[in-house]
């Protein structure tokens, strides 16, 4: 066994860290610190996207011929680690992480030429139209209908939990094109090259944290071109399954972010008086809770490191589901600890102070400002991308000798 990265990789790490220390603007840094969701503040996130694009580092996981970096798995992991350590806003996953890789894998030549450049340089932002009211993690039950008409489809129905659709200029979605046979077999995958088609309406939903992150999208006799179809008509299920590999796959180093949360929590505990004397950091119950959390995060980090090194653990068919389950539940546990540490100071609703560039002073510390929105927003982590109940069903099928 060998625990160390090769020396040239450590040089690469230094190069990445140097860039992250110098390239982001103050607003981008502030957005990173104030990210209380998987989805960073939109405007600063897109600015950062552009900077990374210009550096050539925006899509490390893409093949080099399409604008990827040509980095090894280890380099990508180091990049992700340094990125998280620097507290920078994560790029939004729908464009670079989902629709981009899908088009690279199975889009037509025309689709690639039309869409990939805008995805890469950040001109376009894609919303993901999968979920529907009453559909949830059972995607096969979706019912938003698309009927062929000449060169077009006419869409009727609605989508929900469409993250940042109010910022999007493009959208990919799953629609029902047939009700014959198995539910999975009547679904089609569509790309919409605009979101302002007549008969299409986007309405933001205010979340628990008070922020508009999710949207509802309504289609009423909305006519869109059939040329946006990926794969064959009624074969959208296999297209979606293909995309899911990108959505749930590992290699994006969640543990450094979780460790940053723990550092912040430790610092807050050291500054908070315990009702039993001393500070909370000296309190045995806090120490035990913190130890359990940090040890579990360490195990996730070990799991991630084994996976990128090519250990057999990554070949387990349950790997993506285990990764998603561990990661999402740890985000919840870490944010729960943060909100509990803030206590009454986390109770103020401070949406204005939370905004990047705000002149409004937060009532407590920056820790107190973000802990409650993070806690509230992270209730979603075990719901989205296939609820953890669905993940556990998938994992359970792989258990046994």
């Amino acid at each position, binding site marked *: 066994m060998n625990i160390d*990265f090769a020396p040239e990789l450590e040089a690469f790490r230094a190069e990445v860290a140097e860039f992250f220390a110098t390239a982001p603007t103050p607003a981008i840094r502030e957005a990173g610190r104030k990210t209380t969701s998987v989805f960073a503040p939109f405007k600063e996130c897109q600015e950062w996207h552009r900077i990374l694009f210009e550096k050539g580092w925006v899509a490390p996981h893409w093949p080099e011929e399409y604008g990827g970096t040509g980095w090894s798995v280890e380099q990508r992991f180091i990049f992700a680690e340094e990125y998280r350590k620097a507290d920078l806003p994560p790029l939004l996953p729908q464009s670079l992480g989902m629709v981009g890789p899908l088009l690279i894998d199975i889009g037509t030549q025309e689709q690639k030429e039309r869409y990939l450049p805008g995805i890469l340089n950040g001109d376009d932002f894609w919303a993901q139209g999968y979920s529907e009211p009453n559909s949830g993690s059972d995607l096969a039950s979706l019912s938003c209908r698309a009927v062929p008409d000449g060169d077009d489809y006419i869409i009727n129905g609605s989508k929900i939990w469409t993250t940042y659709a109010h910022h999007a200029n493009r959208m990919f979605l799953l629609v029902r094109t047939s009700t014959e046979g198995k539910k999975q077999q009547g679904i089609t995958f569509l790309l919409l090259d605009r979101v302002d088609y007549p008969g299409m309406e986007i309405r933001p939903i205010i979340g628990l944290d008070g922020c508009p992150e999710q949207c509802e999208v309504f289609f009423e006799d909305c006519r869109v071109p059939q040329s946006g179809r990926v794969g064959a008509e009624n074969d959208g299920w296999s297209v979606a399954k293909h995309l899911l590999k990108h959505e749930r796959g590992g290699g994006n180093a969640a543990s450094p972010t979780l460790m940053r949360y723990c550092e912040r929590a430790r610092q807050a505990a050291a500054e908070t008086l315990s009702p039993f004397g001393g500070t909370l950091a000296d309190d045995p119950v806090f120490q035990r809770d913190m130890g359990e959390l940090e040890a579990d995060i360490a195990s996730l980090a070990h799991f991630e490191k084994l996976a990128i090194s090519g*250990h057999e653990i990554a070949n387990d068919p349950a790997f993506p589901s285990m990764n998603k389950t*561990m990661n999402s539940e740890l985000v919840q546990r870490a944010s729960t600890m943060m909100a509990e540490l803030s206590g009454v100071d986390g109770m103020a609703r401070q949406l204005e102070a939370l905004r990047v560039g705000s002149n409004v002073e937060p009532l407590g510390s920056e820790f107190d400002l973000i802990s409650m929105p993070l806690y509230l927003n992270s209730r979603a982590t075990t719901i989205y991308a296939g609820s953890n109940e669905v993940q556990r069903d998938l994992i*359970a099928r792989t258990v046994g000798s």
Partner: protein
Amino acid sequence: MDFRFTDEQEMLRDGVGKFLEKSYDFDTRQKLVRSDDPWSASAWEQFAEFGLLALPFSEERGGLGGSVTDCVAFAELFGKHLVVEPYASAILLAGAALAEADGDAAAAWLEKAMSGEAVVAFAYEEGRGTAARDLISMVATPSGDGFTLSGEKRLVHAGAEAAAIVVVARKGEGGPLGFFLVEAGTKGCDTRQYTTVDGRSAANIRFDGTPAEELVGAADAMDAILAKAVIVQCAEAVGAMGALVSITADYAMTRKQFGVPIATFQAVAHRLADMKIAYTKARATLIYTTALAESGQAGPRDLAILKGQTGKLGKAVGEAAIQTHGGVGMTDELSVSHYHKRLLACDAQFGDHSYHLRRVGQG
């Protein structure tokens, strides 16, 4: 980075695994545990033939120069087969202390331990538990050329059968910890033998002015010796967890209730998923910490994480396995309860998960 076992380690695993599959199936193991023998002399001989007894020691000491990873490679299989032979205490703990000590006596005992000719026990735990080493209170009082020991040691594996015992005690009242050697039959030893809940032979030993010889030079290596033994003990626990996960899944797929396999009930399926997640986490941490230790980078916090996670997750997996099996999981007949008890035993020694996880939280 590379966290795989080497080809040699895979060969060793393969050889030990085949032997245990053939000669150490659960029924054979249960016959052994219920017999008057404390462990299987023939299995011990076989371990000697595989080179396991000499593996961790340097070539200058007559050993094979094996690494901690070598030991982890086969220790997972020891856990899978619930091996009752006193490998950790006789080889990794007592043997390692002898290997670090100066003098002919230590060398002679080490040679006997490596060949399998004698078993040397390791006396460490005390009544209040020894999670924090500061709690060790036994004192070795200087007397003539040597020392005399007074006090009681608990859970000394192979304590009644051993030809000699390595005892951890303070060198003088309030003094530093050291290793002391007591030969079997020395006066002033009151040994009370018992079988542990996980089927191993152990003893509580009361020393009352018992003459002992200091293992000079060994104390400096105490941290390293204990660290290695803890890692290997965690490997055993992880092996036991893996066995429990697959046994329980197989049972849930075949056991029917209300006309269908119980694995089809979501409550049961999700428990199986959680067991697999727990096992995977513990194994990832075991492998990673082993690699850290091999490169000399494993610190006290890394070891506390490993010991804490393995203890906590192991206990959870054992309890989930019993619940999934229902009534039969409560019986002595089924292997499930025995795996659980081995996991409890691994957790209890050298500080349980509560202790270690709080240490992690102290930062």
